[in-house]
C-alpha cells in the first residue's frame, strides 16, 4: 500500500491526526484540510473554557431562559441525553459543578465538605436540561447547571471529520484524537493496540480492529490531581459525586466516535455490569486496579 497522506492539527488540548489512503495525494490534500477545518469548527462550538463558544453561551443564559442553539449542537445534546439514559446516568455532561467543588477548574485538588458535594449533586443530571426539538432550544431547569461536552467532544469531532471524508468518497482513512479516540473508516481494517495504563506502550492489554467503527479509551492515570497526598483521577461518579477508583481503564468500540468516547467514560464509573447492558457495542474492556482485565466482544 502506498504511504498515507498525514495531516494534523492541535485542537481540544490534543493532537488530531488523519491518515488518508488513496492513489491521488493531490486530491487527498484539500480533503484532509477540510476535515481539519471541521475539527477546528467543532472546537469553536464546544469549547467549555472559551466564553465565545456555543456551549458557553448556553451555560451563560439557559438558566434564565431557553437558548436557541445551532442545529448540530442541539443534535449532539440530544444524543448526550440518550446516552445518559442508556448508561443510567454514568455518562453525564452536566458534572461540572462536581468538578468545580473538587478543585479541578482551579487545578488545586481538594476534598469538598459534604454539604458542598450534596449541593453540587443537586445541579447534576441531564433531567435538569430541557431540550425543545421544535424550537431547537436548551433550558436549564435550575441555576448552576452547566454542560461540558469534554467527555464526548473529541469523538464527536472525529465523527464530523469522518463525514467530510466520506462525502468526498475517501473510505480508507484512520483518524485519532490524542490517545483516547480513534476512528477507522470502512475501506480496510485498522488494528489498534490499547496500551496498559501503567506500562504504557511497552505492553498492550488488547488489540481491536476498527473498520467503519471507533474506539474510545478512558483512563484515570493520565489526568490526576493531588488531594491530601493522594492522586485522584478526573472522572467523578455523577451518582455519588466522588472520584471513581475501582476501574483504571475502560474502552469501547462502537460505530460512532462520540458514542465510544461517552461510553468508555461511563464504563469507568460502572464497570462490566454496565457494559453487558449496552446495545450496539462491538467491544468493551475494563481493567481494574489489580490488573484484572474484563473483555466482551459482540458475537
Amino acid at each position: 500500500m502506498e504511504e498515507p497522506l498525514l495531516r494534523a492539527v492541535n485542537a481540544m488540548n490534543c493532537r488530531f491526526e488523519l491518515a488518508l489512503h488513496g492513489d491521488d495525494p493531490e486530491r487527498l490534500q484539500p480533503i484532509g484540510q477540510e476535515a481539519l477545518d471541521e475539527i477546528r469548527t467543532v472546537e469553536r462550538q464546544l469549547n467549555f473554557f472559551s466564553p465565545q463558544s456555543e456551549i458557553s453561551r448556553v451555560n451563560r443564559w439557559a438558566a434564565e431562559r431557553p437558548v436557541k442553539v445551532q442545529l448540530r449542537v442541539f443534535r449532539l445534546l440530544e444524543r448526550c441525553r440518550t446516552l445518559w439514559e442508556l448508561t443510567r446516568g454514568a455518562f453525564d455532561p452536566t458534572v461540572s459543578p462536581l468538578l468545580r467543588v473538587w478543585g479541578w477548574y482551579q487545578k488545586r485538588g481538594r476534598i469538598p465538605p459534604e454539604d458542598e458535594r450534596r449541593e453540587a449533586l443537586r445541579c447534576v443530571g441531564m433531567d435538569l436540561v430541557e431540550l425543545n426539538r421544535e424550537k431547537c432550544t436548551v433550558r436549564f431547569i435550575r441555576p448552576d447547571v452547566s454542560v461540558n461536552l469534554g467527555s464526548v467532544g473529541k469523538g464527536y469531532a472525529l465523527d464530523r471529520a469522518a463525514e467530510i471524508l466520506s462525502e468526498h468518497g475517501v473510505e480508507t482513512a484512520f483518524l485519532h484524537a490524542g490517545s483516547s479516540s480513534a476512528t477507522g473508516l470502512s475501506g480496510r481494517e485498522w488494528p489498534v493496540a490499547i496500551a496498559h495504563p501503567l506500562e504504557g506502550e511497552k505492553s498492550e492489554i488488547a488489540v481491536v480492529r476498527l473498520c467503519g467503527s471507533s474506539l474510545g479509551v478512558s483512563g484515570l492515570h493520565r489526568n490526576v490531581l493531588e488531594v491530601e497526598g493522594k492522586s485522584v483521577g478526573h472522572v467523578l461518579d455523577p451518582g455519588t459525586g466522588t472520584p471513581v477508583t475501582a476501574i483504571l481503564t475502560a474502552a469501547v468500540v462502537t460505530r460512532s466516535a462520540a458514542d465510544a468516547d461517552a461510553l468508555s467514560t461511563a464504563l469507568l464509573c460502572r464497570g462490566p455490569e454496565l457494559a453487558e447492558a449496552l446495545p450496539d457495542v462491538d467491544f468493551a474492556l475494563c481493567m481494574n486496579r489489580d490488573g484484572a482485565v474484563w473483555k466482551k466482544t459482540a458475537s
Partner: protein
Amino acid sequence: MTDRYSRATRRQFLWLAVTAAGTVCRLSAKGSREPAAGDGPPVSCAVIGTGFRGREILELLTAWEQADVKAYCDVYAPYLARAARLAPDSRGFEDYREMLSEIDELEAVFLTTPTHLHREIAEDLLRAGKHVYCEAPMASTIEDCRAIARAASAVDSVFAVGLQNRSNPVYEHAYQFLRSRAAGSPVTDKGHWYENNSWRRPVGQPEFEEFLNWKLDADISLGLLGEAGVHSFDNSLRQRPDFPVAVSSFGSIMKWRDGRDVEDLVSCVVEYADGYLSRFEASLANSFRQKYYLVNGTEGSFLLQDARAWWFKEADAPSLGWEVYASREKIGDEEGIVLLADATQLLERGFIPGQHQEESDGDLEDDPLQLAIEEFFNAIREGVAPAAGFREGHQSAAMAILAHQSLRRRERVEIDSALFEI
C-alpha cells in the same frame, strides 16, 4: 454616524481610574449583553455563497432569535447540500435572482461569495432595496469598489462590510487608549496572520475547479494581502489621520507548491508621510502566533489577539498612578496590563472600574462575528450607518489592492490618495 461607544476623554478616563480602588485597570463589565430577545422583530435574511465562511454565518444565524433565515444560495450543489443540513427550515437556491424574486419579505442579505463576484450581486441587492452585509474585502478592483460604494451611497438601505474589528469592543477599548496617547506618539504597527492551511478546496465536480479555488488564481485573487490583510490595513487606516503614500510588498511560495501562482508567504510595508510604517505579514505555511495586531508608540505598545488586549508600557514612560492596581499578564518576556472587553460599558452603566469587579468579566463573551452581525442588525433597526460601511470597505479594499499591485509588479508603488475616494 451614531457612536455606540462612549469616547471618554483621557482626563475623564484617568479621573475614574484614580478614584477607583483595587485592580483598576481590570476595566470590564459583565461582558455579555443580555440576549437581544427584546430588541424588536427578527430580521429576515438570506446568505448568498455557502462555502466555508457562508456556512459559518448561516449556522450562527440559525441559532439566533433575532435572525429569521429565509433562504441560502450557492451555484455549487455540494455546498448547497451542506447548507441545507444546517438550515433545514430555510429554502435553498442556485440562482440568487430567483431567490430575490421568490422570497417575499427579505430584508437583509449576507454576501459571502468569492470577492471578485461581489460587485454584480451587491448592485443587484441594493437595487432590490435589501440591506447588505458584504464580506471583506469589498471587491478586488478599485473600479468595483467604487461601483459598489456609489450604489450603496445612492440608497437608504444599510451596507455593511465584514470588517469585524470595527464592532469589536476590545479593539474600541484599545483605540481609546491610543487616542488618549497612552502609548505616546505612534511609531509603527504590525498585523500578523499565520495559518498552516493550503487554502485549496476539494472539488467534487472538475468543472468547478477554477470557481472553487479562485483564491489560488493570481489573475483574480488578491491572495493573502487581500483576503487576510484587509483587516490589518483597516486597523491601521482607522487610527491614522491621513492616507499612506507608498507600499512595498514581497511574497513567495514556500510550502504549497501545487501549481498555484498565489504566494503562501507575503510581507508588506505601508509608508506614511511622517515616516510611520505599517506592516503586514501573512503565511499559509506556518501557524505560529496565529493572528494578532500590534501598535508600537514612543511610550508603550498595544497587542490585540483574538478577543483580548494588553498594554505594554515603556520603562521610561510616565506613570499614570492607577497602573499599580492593574491586572497583568506575561506575554513572552514582556509583562502587559490586561485591557478587557467592556470597560466602556462599565462606565456607561455608571460603575467605577475596580470598585465593581463583581460586575466584571474580563474576556469578551460574544463571538466577534456575532457582534459584527448584531451591529449590522442594529444599524438596520435604527436606520444608522454601520461601524464598517461602504466608505471603510472601499478604503480598506483599496489599500489591499494597492499592496497586491506592489507584489505583482515586484516594486514599490507610490499611492495617489485620490484612490481612497469614492
